[in-house]
């Protein structure tokens, strides 16, 4: 089963694109990618030299998220907040339904596109 995490940059954000099914078997790989991205951002050689991490998780090509995956996402939110940063998440409809079901949509900045997710995170930060 294919599972991939690809790191990229977009307008001051570190983008982690995740492809596949996000369960306990692959959760450590995403956790590692998140930690590395936040570490790079904290050193100032990440997102545009900004020490406050801005992390964008692109989950639009994730076919399934279970609670192991939700745990990693919540851990990412906790670490980003601790560093005064921002977390934005681009989701497909099924993934959004899961976030709504678990009521995590109240604390996460979600969008159907990368731009929408960034706008949701910026809206949260300024609102």
């Amino acid at each position, binding site marked *: 089963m294919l599972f991939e995490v690809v790191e990229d940059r977009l307008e001051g954000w570190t983008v982690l694109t995740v492809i596949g099914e996000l369960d306990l078997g692959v959760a450590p790989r995403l956790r590692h990618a998140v930690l590395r991205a936040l570490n790079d951002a904290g050193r100032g050689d990440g997102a545009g030299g900004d020490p406050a991490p801005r992390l964008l998780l692109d989950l639009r090509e994730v076919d399934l998220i279970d609670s192991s995956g939700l745990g990693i996402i919540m851990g990412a939110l906790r670490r980003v907040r601790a560093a005064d940063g921002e977390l934005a998440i681009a989701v497909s409809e099924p993934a959004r339904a899961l976030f709504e*079901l678990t009521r995590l949509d109240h604390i996460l900045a979600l969008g159907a596109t990368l731009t929408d997710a960034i706008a949701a995170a910026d809206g949260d930060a300024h609102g």
Partner: protein
Amino acid sequence: MSTAVDDMGEVVLEIPARVEYLVLARQVVAAAAAVEPRLRDERIDDLRIAVSEATTNAIEAHADLSGPSTKDRILIRCNLDDERIEVSVFDQAGGFDPDEIAAAPEAGAPDRLERERGLGLPLIRTLADESDVISTDGGTAVRLVVYTPGARSSA
């Protein structure tokens, strides 16, 4: 690992208690559920996640025991009839108190972000139409049911 389909429409899957087999567990149950054309894709996705949670719990329970054992096998039984699909996941890793795990903080509560585990059972309860957990000294059985549209209790 073995799979069997008996005359009564029951699919039985036995897997080692290892994370690499989560995908297989989901695939087998989803394939069994797909036999029922009235089950929408969204409901099959709910079932896949719920099965993933139950199997994850079983794998973690085995991992918490010391050392590998020949008993480190998980049994998944899947029954489909006109009204519903019922999946049971059995482990042999001792038991736990499901009431203790149910007390996860609400979303938005300050300590909610500290919880990176223990979300599985609440999710199973939310996704399945019916679920129960029977824990004994020998192991734990998680049973979950999704109703077919048109059958009783379906949403």
